[in-house]
């Protein structure tokens, strides 16, 4: 009788201890799982984000490369003309032939919103929107100020601004034009529509969201 009592008591203790142990294992396993899932989530999302930023940055790089190429080709046209002074530059840039040249650049490159020749006082000499151009002065723009003040061969990337022609957000890639003596003659300008980027981002974002959702579903 006593042995039987001891046996049942021992069984109770074992079951109790086993139950507690199993409960602890359940809890610990659950929290480890939660932690693991969190880590995996972070990792997978970070991978996803890395990929997305890569796509986005590549797209930007390609866009800017294309815009820069167009800007450089326009700048090369001016440089090949070997203009000596501001007068000859104005004359060169205001010709209808240049309007057609700019127009061709814009047509061949859809990212270009506008291409412009600017005089040393900020007046628009020629641009892709119309010929002859209306009287527009861009002396207040950051790129004009920056390039007039600094004799640099580098391209200046402006802050986005609302285009005075169509009120759309555009940012510009600008390059300084120098005379024979290195004096400031004006600026050549390529405007890129911000909408180009946001439209692409929207497509990427939607895809990203879809992928992200799929990604989170355990395989």
């Amino acid at each position: 009788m006593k042995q039987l009592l001891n046996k049942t008591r021992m069984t109770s203790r074992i079951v109790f201890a086993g139950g507690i142990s199993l409960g602890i294992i359940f809890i610990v396993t659950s929290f480890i799982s939660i932690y693991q899932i969190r880590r995996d989530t972070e990792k997978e999302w970070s991978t996803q984000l890395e990929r997305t930023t890569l796509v986005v940055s590549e797209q930007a790089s390609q866009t800017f490369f294309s815009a820069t190429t167009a800007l450089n080709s326009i700048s090369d046209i001016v440089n090949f003309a070997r203009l000596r002074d501001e007068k000859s530059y104005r004359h060169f840039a205001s010709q209808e032939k240049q309007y057609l040249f700019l127009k061709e650049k814009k047509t061949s490159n859809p990212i270009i919103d506008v291409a412009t020749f600017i005089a040393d006082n900020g007046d628009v000499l020629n641009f892709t929107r119309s010929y002859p151009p209306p009287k527009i002065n861009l002396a207040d723009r950051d790129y004009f100020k920056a390039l007039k003040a600094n004799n640099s061969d580098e391209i200046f990337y402006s802050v986005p601004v609302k285009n005075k022609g169509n009120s759309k957000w555009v940012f510009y890639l600008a390059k300084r034009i120098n005379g024979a003596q290195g004096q400031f003659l004006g600026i050549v300008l390529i405007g890129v529509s911000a909408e180009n980027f946001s439209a692409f981002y929207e497509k990427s974002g939607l895809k990203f969201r879809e992928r992200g959702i799929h990604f989170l579903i355990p395989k």
Partner: protein
Amino acid sequence: MKKVGSNLGSGASISLYRNDYILMTRWPFVDKLVGIKNSNSATQEIIGDRTTVEHGLLITDKARFSTGTASEPRMVAARVVNEFPFIATVVIPKSLYAPNFFSHVGWILGLLTIGLILLFTFVRHVLFANSQINLELLERGLVQKALGDANEKLETLAYIDLLTGLPNRQNLIEQLNLAIDKCKITPSHYAILFIDLDNFKELNDRYGHDRGDLLLTKVAKQLLACVGSDDIVSRFGGDEFVILLSHLEYKEIDGTYTAELISQKILNTLTQTKHLDGIEYRCSASIGITIFGQEPLSEFEIIKRADIAMYHAKMSGRNTFSIFNAQLQKDFEYKLHLGELLKDAIEQNHFEYYYQPQFDNHLNIIGAELLLRWKTIEGDEILPNIFIPLAEQNGLMIKLGNLAIENAATQIAAWSTFPFLSNLTLAINISSQQIEDTNFVHSLITCLNSHQVKASQLRLELTESVLITKFEDAIRTLDLLKSYGIKLSLDDFGTGYSSLSYLRRLPIDELKIDQSFVRGIVEGSSACNLIITIINLAKILNINVIAEGVETKEERDFLFENGCFLYQGFLYSKPLPLNEFIEFVRSWKHIDPE
């Protein structure tokens, strides 16, 4: 600009910054943010942390959580645009990346909860089942223990007397059997002392059973103190104790010497005064002794012999011991036989009725006492002092008394037709057993009524022993008899132990002076003073006094001179059979000088 992708959730965005953190464009597009430097952006933090530079790329430090302008946590990744001074960033809010995570956490916690509940239920069920088993086992253990205790108690009850703590009858019988077996192997001698307390019933009746029990416990201790450690003192039942004496020396013939000494010691011890809860009591006992070991006897035979010896001691006046012998056996068997004969005699009314006249001082016959004579069918004449106690011992007294009452009523009724007999009072003796019988008064009155006899013509003579037990009950019965007009006489007055206070409460009409005192008159002993005292006592109580056993003229004169005017005895007439009595009364009338 139109906002796009707003359905992605608040806080989600893909942006392009200039390397001085001026926002060039973003999706979804927000006018007020474009062209503005994002000085608090998490991007600055990411890009500024150059430790994450990898292959010319600036990327997130593994896309960590951060907080932005919105209160909601967001995840931000940033990357420098290759060869251009721009930074591309992607931001997603918690609402995008967290739901599935929290959904999984919810699932896990849910499963955990269910698992814990199931586990808890299982463990609880097992523990509960185990506890039930434990309880059952414990209960079983307790029951077994209780059964063990009960068995032990039963065993104790079976062998021990609870009141005194002495071995009981069963125990003694077993010990006796052991002794008998030992005698078969080795010649030895044992003695059985059968002890019966004298008048124990009276103690119980008078002072209550509590005091009776107290006496038994005290007696038990005293008995234990009187015997050796190898002797066994047992309570045999009621007020009977039996002692088994061992190791009686063989040279003492049959061991009686030792047994006698111990018996005497017991008698001396028991007579010591005992304090019984407020009263002082001195008891005595009658002891029967039997020795065994020499002849093969059963345990019952041994006990029976001791009982016979005890009975003899009781009959010998109590407070003494008696040793069993063959004569006692014979006497005992004769009494048994006589008891059987008496029973038959009562059933068949084989008694002879004698009438002894009673006289007043003018020699008028005032009545008679009815006396029973018994001659057995074997022709032996048995005296009343033999068969009356025998009837009491055999529980035949009430039947015998009823015979006497029936005879008396019949005679009184018959005498009513004779003028010289019609005024006589007939006295009969009644015993204490009759008085104690609750049906006595009813049957007596019924008998008188059935014979149309006046109750005043019947006189009941009772002895003082009637008053010893249940005094109050006896008084009530006597009062009831008195209320019917029956006369009461106290027989053998002076031989017992009536106290004056009791006498005063008795509703008696007459005191009867015992013949032993009357016989003492001629010897000039102290009996004379006793008689004078009794007579004066009767005067004080204003009741009659009658003397029995008057055999000489001197006795009669002494009684007359001292105020006793009623007589019964051989001086006038011996007890007479009915016909002779009637003739005597008729003749007496005839020779009456007055």
